[in-house]
């Protein structure tokens, strides 16, 4: 919004000190948030580079794995259905844990294998070696996939948090601080004006007092000229206030 808005408060010296401390707080918050945003952006770029690398590697690994599947099928015939029918529970599992980066919780997936290999004897009479190779290749592919999954979730989460943080930084920089500064300058102008008004009022009153004194002097001299009496000590007008000399 335009820089003309300011907080509606009554301009007083206490309000001035309050505003000053608020400004300081806003500036500190701004620099802290900027640091957070920078740390997150750095991590973001690292994750991005890693994702590109992993995706390229993934393409190659998958290609090799499909090819070893073709080789195993050539040597062993159709073992597909037996393997699928024999499945009971997963032997490759994934567990997730949280990692804290500059205050953001990123999920990280880890792959672990649970239980023994129940397909040791598949292809015992033909194609066993190719099936072994196939198992290894696909195992590698699954591990890579898990890694890629955790990288992508961190990418998405980081992206969101960075957007939010940057929004806050910009808000403080372009809205909050100018507003406080405007309020501060308004208070200062108001206080100055009040002082000036005070000063003017005082000057006016001084002038008025001087006029009154001048008139009183003149009256006294006129009276003395008429009566030619010595004035008495007790008669001598009032004492002027010491303030307005």
């Amino acid at each position, binding site marked *: 919004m335009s820089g003309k808005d300011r907080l509606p408060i009554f301009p007083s010296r206490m309000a001035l000190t309050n505003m000053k401390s608020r400004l300081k707080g806003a500036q500190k918050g701004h620099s802290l948030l900027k640091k957070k945003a920078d740390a997150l952006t750095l991590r973001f770029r690292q994750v991005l580079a890693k994702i590109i690398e992993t995706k390229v590697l993934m393409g190659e690994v998958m*290609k090799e794995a499909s090819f070893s599947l073709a080789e195993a099928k050539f040597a062993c015939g159709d073992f597909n259905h*037996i393997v699928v029918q024999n499945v009971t529970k997963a032997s490759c599992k994934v567990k997730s844990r949280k990692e804290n980066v500059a205050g953001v919780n990123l999920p990280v997936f880890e792959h672990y294998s649970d239980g023994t290999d129940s397909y040791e004897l598949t*292809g*015992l*009479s033909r194609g066993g070696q190719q099936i072994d190779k196939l198992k290894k290749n696909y195992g590698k592919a699954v591990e890579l996939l898990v890694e890629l999954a955790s990288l992508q979730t961190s990418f998405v989460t980081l992206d969101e948090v960075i957007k939010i943080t940057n929004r806050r930084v910009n808000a403080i920089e372009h809205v909050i601080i100018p507003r406080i500064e405007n309020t501060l300058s308004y208070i200062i102008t108001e206080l100055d004006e009040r002082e000036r008004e005070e000063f003017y009022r005082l000057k006016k009153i001084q002038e008025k007092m001087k006029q009154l004194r001048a008139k009183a002097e003149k009256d006294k001299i006129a009276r003395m000229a008429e009566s030619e009496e010595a004035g008495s000590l007790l008669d001598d007008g009032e004492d002027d206030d010491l303030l307005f000399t």
Partner: protein
Amino acid sequence: MSISELYYNVDNGYLEGLVRGFKGGILRQTDYLNLIQCETLEDLKLHLQSTDYGTFLANEPSPLTVSVIDDKLKEKLVVEFQHVRNHAYEPLSTFLDFITYSYMIDNIILLITGTLHQRAISELIPKCHPLGSFEQMEAVNIAATPAELYNAILVDTPLAPFFQDCISEQDLDEMNIEIIRNTLYKAYLEGFYKFCQEMGGATADVMCPILAFEADRRAIIITINSFGTELTKDDRAKLYPRCGKLFPDGLAALARADDYDQVRAVSDYYAEYRLLFEGAGNNPGDKTLEDRFFEHEVELNVYAFMQQFHFGIFYAWVKLKEQECRNIVWIAECIAQGQRGKIDSYIQILE
């Protein structure tokens, strides 16, 4: 009982002629060279149209995938085989049944595994190999354990004698499914070998070496693949079929072997197997041992066509067609995945 050359054609002449015709249509070297130069699967389909396969892929919607090609190739072989089987008299029909038993074993293992894990029977039936179907297939899911399965259903199938020879009721429950499969296969091979021997004549001459090689090949490969697994040496020895050249000394030596080199040392005593090991290796660019075994099997099967008036040609034709299917699927996979490096690792069948 030997089939005299004089009377063979009475019952089996038509079928032998048919099968020799099929053999004539097996892809040659030039066909394979054409296929490996294809850029896409559509090109492959085009090239196959000029071979014996004709327009078998004509009605498939594009885009063509490798699994569709695989299914169609199998279907063609199944149709041809069933035609031959339907026209066969004894003893050819028993011989052809023996050929289907190996597929039946695979199907039964699949059904047992599926039933044990409570899959619906309707999911499992389409996955069975059509050449190995038997009447009681649908009834397999009423049994909850393999032992019950045997008592209720398998005892009526032609595979019952193979179960009887080697597996007892509690074995069925405890054994790993692969061990059951290999034990059954061993009994099957030995039964088939005995049948061919009894037939005598040219059939025995041709089939017995082929089956002996198959038995030895299984023994060697089982040994090599069992290194590093939980299979004990005794269990392993029980899986070796005894109808090969390696019986009895070679098998005993294999049962004691601990690593690849010892297996190789055992096969060095047998001339042909030594040659096979020499050509094989695990470095990239070498043929694997399995490839060498495939090549030798193909050689033996091609020799079967040199003689006439025997049943070996039927077995050889089925095996050669299967190998051809595998070759075509391999080439198709290499094209589809863009890995042209190993595209010529198919097994060459005929010149």
